[in-house]
């Protein structure tokens, strides 16, 4: 009974989000392009550096696969919520969302699913098209790998959503919530593996990363898909994802409760 209600609710929210996105097709293409250029530039540089040999165990082919997987998984896990929340809170759009009988977080989740389906779907088509003319980026088809990666991608998407949402909630207290998110993005450039596979970082840096949530946002699912992570790394990866999801969930709920209390006080 309740399950059916939630399916109906999410169906409506996602249809709505899908139709809203449909109006901004050109914008979405531009955002996807923006998401493609950063890994494309990094791949270009590593490709030249690797030459005919290997860098830290990575050959040209490995780099190509790594950055193609990264582009796709980044698009599947990216969350823009801190920017939306920042605007909702600063401009008062949140006022219209609060009286609804549904927590605003559900709208944000539905938006994410619709956006990711569209943008990642586009990227997947591009990948398939490229792999026809450029065999280097073909991945061996292994159903188990894809299944395990899918689970890790969902967990990474949850983690990144919680981080983005929580950071956006900081707009209750500061006008620079999006700057904090930019700072986080800058750090994730290195610690999440966006600029290079983590194993190419100086050992001290990748050591620090392993104590934080960054590798579980992106690097872990990417190495799963390219087949670089197995055995013990699998266990460490999933454990890390679950631990950090739990921590950010608590942070998110705490920030929401405290923020709403403060927001009410300020507006009333």
């Amino acid at each position: 009974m309740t399950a059916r209600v939630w399916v109906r609710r999410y169906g409506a929210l996602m249809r709505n989000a899908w139709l809203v996105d449909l109006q901004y097709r050109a914008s979405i293409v531009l955002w996807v392009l923006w998401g493609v250029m950063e890994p494309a530039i990094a791949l270009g540089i590593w490709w030249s550096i690797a030459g005919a040999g290997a860098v830290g165990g990575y050959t040209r082919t490995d780099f190509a696969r790594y950055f193609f997987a990264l582009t796709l998984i980044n698009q599947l896990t990216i969350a823009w919520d801190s920017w939306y929340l920042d605007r909702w809170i600063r401009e008062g759009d949140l006022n219209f969302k609060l009286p609804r009988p549904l927590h605003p977080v559900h709208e944000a989740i539905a938006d994410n699913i619709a956006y990711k389906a569209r943008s990642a779907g586009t990227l997947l088509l591009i990948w398939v098209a490229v792999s026809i003319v450029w065999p280097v980026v073909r991945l061996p088809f292994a159903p188990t790998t894809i299944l395990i990666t899918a689970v890790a991608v969902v967990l990474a998407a949850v983690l990144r959503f919680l981080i983005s949402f929580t950071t956006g909630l900081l707009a209750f207290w500061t006008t620079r919530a999006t700057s904090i998110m930019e700072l986080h993005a800058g750090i994730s450039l290195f610690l999440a593996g966006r600029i290079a596979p983590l194993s190419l970082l100086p050992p001290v840096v990748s050591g620090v990363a392993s104590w934080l949530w960054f590798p579980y946002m992106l690097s872990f699912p990417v190495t799963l898909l390219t087949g670089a992570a197995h055995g013990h790394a699998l266990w460490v990866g999933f454990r890390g994802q679950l631990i950090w999801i739990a921590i950010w969930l608590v942070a998110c709920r705490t920030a929401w409760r405290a923020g709403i209390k403060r927001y009410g006080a300020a507006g009333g």
Partner: protein
Amino acid sequence: MSRARPFAVLGALWKLNAAEELQYRANFVASFASTAFYLLTALLTLSLFFRHASSLGGWDFWEVVVLLGVFNALSGLVEAILRPGIGDLAAQVRSGNLDLVLSRPVDAQAFVTFRHIDIWRLADIILGLGVSTYALLHVGRFPSGMQIVAFVVTFVAAALVVYAIWVTLMSLAFWFVSVENIATLFDAVFEGARYPVSAYPAALRFVFFYLLPVAWTTTIPASALTGRLSAPTAVLAAGVGGAALVLSRLLWRAAIRHYTGASS
């Protein structure tokens, strides 16, 4: 359209503009901090590449840092002048505010280009050139007077090329109204100008050379500073800059001729 005293008009605009921006001094700290952080990540990225390589496309570490400084200066120019000025064109076409500009007795293209300047971002230009200077001093390769002249000429040419790209992208607004995010296209590709063109594989080089020609904009002025630029290339770059200016002018005229106002 008479173009009486364009500099007096611009001067008055900038005075207003400065008075407006000076109210928000905290923005200077925020803007400076974000640029400094951006430069820091760029330098860390570079040192990561150079952990595994001794050169990028034949450029050593400090030469690429010189280029990075030029890139930062150029993107400061984009953020300070182009984005708030010509970057706002699409919104003005859509809202109809362009009609108010066109009816004024000033050169509309110059007015739209320079009407609003984000003065805090001008600091990025100084910061960028500072980074380049530091890198040059660090390796003790002080550029000669001739090299500095070549740098200034090619840097101005690069700015004109970037300007022409923006005019081209923004002019699309006259034909297709909803192109407000088109600047994202520039941002995405301009990132490629952070490294020397020679550091890329052929396919990417093609994109940066011909599709959106941002490669010219940083590699050539930086080459002038590091003494890699030949005289013919410098002359060619100056020619390309001049051609870009003419092109942006022609494009603007064609777009305005096509434009019929928001109300019709």
